């Protein structure tokens, strides 16, 4: 068990190391730097694991499951931003969501885990894959050229992105490591049932936030329909005059 100051500074060091590894792993730059990136990444991840294991004690089973799941999600997360092909990035994102779900479930938050899979892996990422499929319909161009497409082959502003991202990680990680956390009230929540507890809190203490989030989603849906509505008429006479407002167009036809 290190003192909190030492732990925080070593986490900063690991963040710098990780940033270097991710920077090297970014696609582009004209030369392959996979091996040093992998080595630095392994060292940084291993250091992070050791740091976390010394700071937070657990049973052997917890440690093993944490190690496996955290490594998977770290690796997946790095591949999301360093893979040269968007579809693979999206699939790695699914891997990150699933392994994070494993972490969440292992720490007893089953409801959060289910929500993570349903919302992220099941809905948002399907939309990502959908959009990417439309944006990159054909693979054959890539095969004839023998590599990823121009705009995917090179990371734009990798240095700035890595610095910004790892600054955030260092600040958040330092904050988390620098504080001492009270032992979670696991026994209490287990008695009530995790899902029941979450539901009760959401509909009493955070009722307004939940309602606001719902209204926000409703506004988003209405906005999407307003943007997507179009006149579909084969008869030119029935088409709206030029320069008609978007809202006016929508009133004439059914959306489907």
């Amino acid at each position, binding site marked *: 068990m290190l003192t909190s100051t030492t732990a925080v500074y070593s986490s900063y060091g690991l963040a710098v190391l990780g940033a270097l590894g991710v920077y090297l792993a970014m696609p582009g730059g004209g030369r392959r730097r996979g091996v040093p990136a992998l080595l630095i990444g392994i060292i940084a991840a291993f250091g992070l694991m050791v740091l976390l294991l010394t700071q937070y004690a657990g049973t052997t089973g917890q440690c093993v499951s944490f190690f496996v799941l955290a490594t998977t999600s770290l690796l997946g997360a790095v591949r999301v931003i360093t893979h040269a092909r968007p*579809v*693979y990035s999206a*699939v790695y994102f*699914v891997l990150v969501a699933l392994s994070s779900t494993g972490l969440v479930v292992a720490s007893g938050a*089953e*409801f959060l*885990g*289910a*929500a993570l*899979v*349903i919302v992220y*892996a*099941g*809905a948002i990422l*399907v*939309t990502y*894959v*959908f959009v990417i*499929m*439309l944006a990159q*319909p*054909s*693979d*054959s161009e890539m*095969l004839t050229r023998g590599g990823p497409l121009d705009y995917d082959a090179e990371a734009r502003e990798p240095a700035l992105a890595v610095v910004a991202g790892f600054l955030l990680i260092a600040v958040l990680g330092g904050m988390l490591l620098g504080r001492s956390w009270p032992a979670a009230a696991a026994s209490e929540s287990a008695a009530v*049932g*995790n*899902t029941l507890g979450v539901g009760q809190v959401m509909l009493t203490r955070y009722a307004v936030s939940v309602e606001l989030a719902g209204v926000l989603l409703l506004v988003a849906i209405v906005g999407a329909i307003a943007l997507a509505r179009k006149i*579909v*008429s*084969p*008869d030119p006479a029935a088409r709206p005059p030029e320069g008609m407002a978007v809202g006016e167009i929508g009133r004439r036809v*059914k959306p*489907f």
Partner: protein
Amino acid sequence: MIDWLKEILASQFGLSMLVMLLAVGGVMGAAAWLILFERKVAAWTQDRYGPNRVGPRGLFQPIADGLKLFLKEDIIPGKVDRALFIFAPCIALIIGMLGVAIVPFGGVMRWSDGGPLLKVQVASIDIGLLYVVAVGSLGVYSVVLGGWASNNKYATYGGMRAAAQMLSYEVPLGLCLLVCILSTGQLRLEGMVERQIQSCWLGILQPLVFVLFFTTALAEANRAPFDLAECEQELVGGFHTEYSAMKWALFFFGEYAHMVSTSAVMVALFLGGWEPIPFSLKIGGWLESVSPLAWLGAMLKWITLDPSPWAALVRGGVYVGKVGCLIFCYMWVRWTLPRFRFDQLMRLAWKAMVPTGMALAVWAGFLVYWGRPMSAWALAGNGILLLLCGMISVASGRPTTGRQDSLPKVEGVS
């Protein structure tokens, strides 16, 4: 050896492992013979014999089919995305099988009097139904990734259709599940079944929810009339155009495994799980007072409640029987109804099923507020809603689409 086995089986873990082995083997075997069953149902619907050459009445047809699929050349076309092309059928089968994990096949049992009560299911988890939704929502990846990786425009269209369809039909599915959760006050499937045994099956109290759920389950499994992702007339084979041999068979197995697991969930949600007939406790109690039929009443009660292993086995049989009936319904629908057009499919989901599901969920919420979620009021609400829906659909007339607008007007036809 026997003592050691007994000791393992006496714990919940051991029993769960046993159920898991039976369920995995059962689903895999069932998938093979369900394909034969499907062909027989198709033949029956179309008034012909169906497969009848291999074995008595064609019973060994699945073995011949399996051999054929294993021995066929497994083609990976040259310009596909290899990794995802191989990965996609695997997801189809895995996701299809995962749902069986929380199905409560036989209630609770104990090996001997005084022993611990064990649950006859693979895993009894707190989130229960949410697990079903979570696993089901991942199923779309197999179709989407398979379609994209094939590098074929028909396959890509199939994958895109499937993605849009599954995302749309998850909304009414969630609303139906919400009604079930509100009515029973439970997320655990076995708790829902017990609640239904105490009062009444949800399929009787909320028939409209059952119909909605069955329809969304058809759509989620990509079964006719919702099989636009593999629409032969328009898309050759849809998302599996480029697949052959065993990889194609994995998609096929995945579809049947998905049917089995959604049917099993439906049995727990709406058809009282392992209870042989609705109200079996009340009917059993009444029959026991009628002297010549007392044995029947006692048997009903024994099947529904008794914790002995034999009763659990009978309960499992009842459960599997109900699953089989629902699967027959899937096939019956497939060979009876023609396929939807894509705009009809979307209109059905967003303009019919989502509003109906919302109305049902609101009604279930009111019933919970009044403290009688499992009463005849639920049935009354369903009836009134059905009447309202009918009136609205009659009043609004047939919907016209862009294509119908462009057709020349015919005299006397509105």
